[in-house]
């Protein structure tokens, strides 16, 4: 049995203060992001989808055009060589959104979030740093991938291919990358809102691929066209294409609407992350 020493005066320990800083939070999230295999592999999957599908579909288009029977008819309709090589980017929307989900929901499912919020108890800095690291990582990785997909795809298409200097091509490339960053951030926000990886990924999947199909069935008299134009994953359509698709918002309006979606989701995610017990 130990002796009671409650009343013994003891000098309180004075530690060296290691303060939390924005730079520290960013460095920490960078280490966290790249040190989990599932995240790194999902990023690799995004590269494969963007470059692989881009090259594959460019190849398919070249074969169709080379076909003596079908070729001339297809060519007559107008060939969007850029779109063919960037098809994979659309598939990668879901993949980068999943990365965003994993980055935050993975912390909740493993309990890591308690360490994160004990290390930085104001919490919002953690989310902001996660968003910044995610945005930069997705920007760089998909930026290189989209450029590679375009260049390889056009090389496959040869004389039918587009070039970087063509009207609208550069904007479409940049647009695709920005949209990918937007989807990744939206995934992060949904992950923070739902805190469950599977649920959040399914929600994002539905938002990107299922809801647009359902909206096609909404009659015009119910505002179907407006709903479709302004829906989250439809809004940035014309930001990603060289030739404008008339049934969607134009590139600038689309960018604004899409950015608003992402920012509102992030704000809701931040609110929930700040307030809920972990």
């Amino acid at each position, binding site marked *: 049995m*130990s002796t009671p020493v409650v009343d013994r005066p003891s*000098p309180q*320990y004075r*530690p060296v203060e290691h303060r939390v800083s924005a730079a520290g939070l960013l460095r920490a999230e960078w280490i966290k992001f790249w040190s989990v295999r599932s995240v790194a592999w999902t990023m690799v999957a995004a590269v494969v989808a963007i470059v692989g599908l881009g090259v594959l579909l460019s190849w398919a288009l070249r074969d169709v055009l080379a076909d003596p029977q079908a070729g001339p008819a297809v060519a007559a309709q107008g060939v969007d060589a850029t779109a063919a090589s960037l098809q994979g980017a659309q598939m990668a929307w879901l993949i980068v959104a999943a990365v965003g989900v994993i980055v935050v929901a*993975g912390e909740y499912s493993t309990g890591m979030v308690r360490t994160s919020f004990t*290390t930085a108890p104001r919490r919002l800095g953690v989310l902001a740093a996660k968003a910044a690291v995610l945005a930069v990582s997705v920007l760089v990785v998909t930026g290189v991938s989209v450029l590679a997909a375009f260049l390889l795809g056009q090389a496959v298409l040869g004389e039918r291919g587009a070039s970087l200097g063509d009207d609208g091509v550069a904007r479409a490339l940049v647009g695709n990358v920005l949209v990918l960053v937007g989807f990744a951030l939206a995934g992060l926000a949904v992950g923070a809102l739902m805190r469950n990886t599977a649920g959040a990924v399914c929600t994002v999947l539905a938002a990107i691929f299922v809801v647009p199909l359902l909206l096609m069935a909404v009659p015009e008299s119910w505002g179907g066209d407006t709903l479709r134009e302004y829906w989250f994953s439809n809004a940035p359509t014309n930001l990603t294409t060289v030739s404008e698709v008339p049934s969607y918002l134009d590139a600038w309006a689309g960018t604004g609407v899409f950015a608003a979606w992402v920012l509102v989701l992030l704000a809701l995610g931040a609110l929930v992350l700040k307030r809920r*017990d*972990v």
Partner: protein
Amino acid sequence: MIEARGLRKVYGRKTAVHDLSFTVRPGIVTGFLGPNGSGKSTTMRMVLGLDRPTAGQVLVDGRPFAQHRAPLSSVGALLDAKAVHTGRSALNHLRAMAATAGIGRARVDEVIDLVGLREVAAKRAGGFSLGMGQRLGIASALLGDPANVMFDEPVNGLDPDGILWIRNLMKSLAAEGRSVFVSSHLMSEMALTADHLVVIGRGRLIADESVQAFVDRVRPRGVTVRSPQVAQLTDLVRDAGGELVATGDGAFEVRGLSAERIGDEALRRGVAVHELHTVRASLEEAFMQLTADAVEYAAHAGPGAGPVLDLPADRPAGPAPSTREQRETQEVSR
């Protein structure tokens, strides 16, 4: 220094912590004792701001934890083995934590060596045993060289060497002037490490006092007497109003009489006494007596049913009431 004032936490219809107030002082190890489900972990999470108190507040060195600019230097916490991403290596886990607070790589290596995780530092934490997970949690807690240390059930999963190591670690941390707050449901563990106890049962404060004072509050269990003059001893005890029970090895346990009384009486009657000592209540027994009503799983006990604490100070000094719980306790401790 950690000060809880009127801390309360309600989850839906269940109140996990009731108006809890206590102080964890620097320089000593404060044990946080309570049965499983009594609200210890909830209280610790509230200290760190992970759970928001329904009422009341808890201050760390005078401020809510979330307002500290250097949280890792303020409180180092081992919450449970699951505050780590299973897919990340121990080294990267600590590197990320250190980065947040601008702590250098040298300190990361230092705590890895301190807890003995060097060989597995590059392995994923998901593959760690319970004991290795605890060591990683302790390394995380010590990373910022904090003024306050909070360990939730730290000996869980540790081998005997590890248990001894953490006991000494907690004592040396306290000796350096840090506040050490350690929870356990193991009374024996607290007896070996704690100087001061905060005891809770069903979310309510039961005791906040030194370990010694806590044990002293509980009646002695009885007096062991050994005498060759069995008949005379039996008469003596009966005449004095006590109760005598043979313990089977030639000794007797006397209840209701103090050792002094038995000794004096034996001298007066000329009864030879070969052994005479008071059987002290162990920390276990003290705890059982004080929390019997507060144990979450006690039969018939609904939330908020009656007073939780039956203070022993109020009890008459006569023959000990022989409740079922006490008999069980005694049998276990024999």
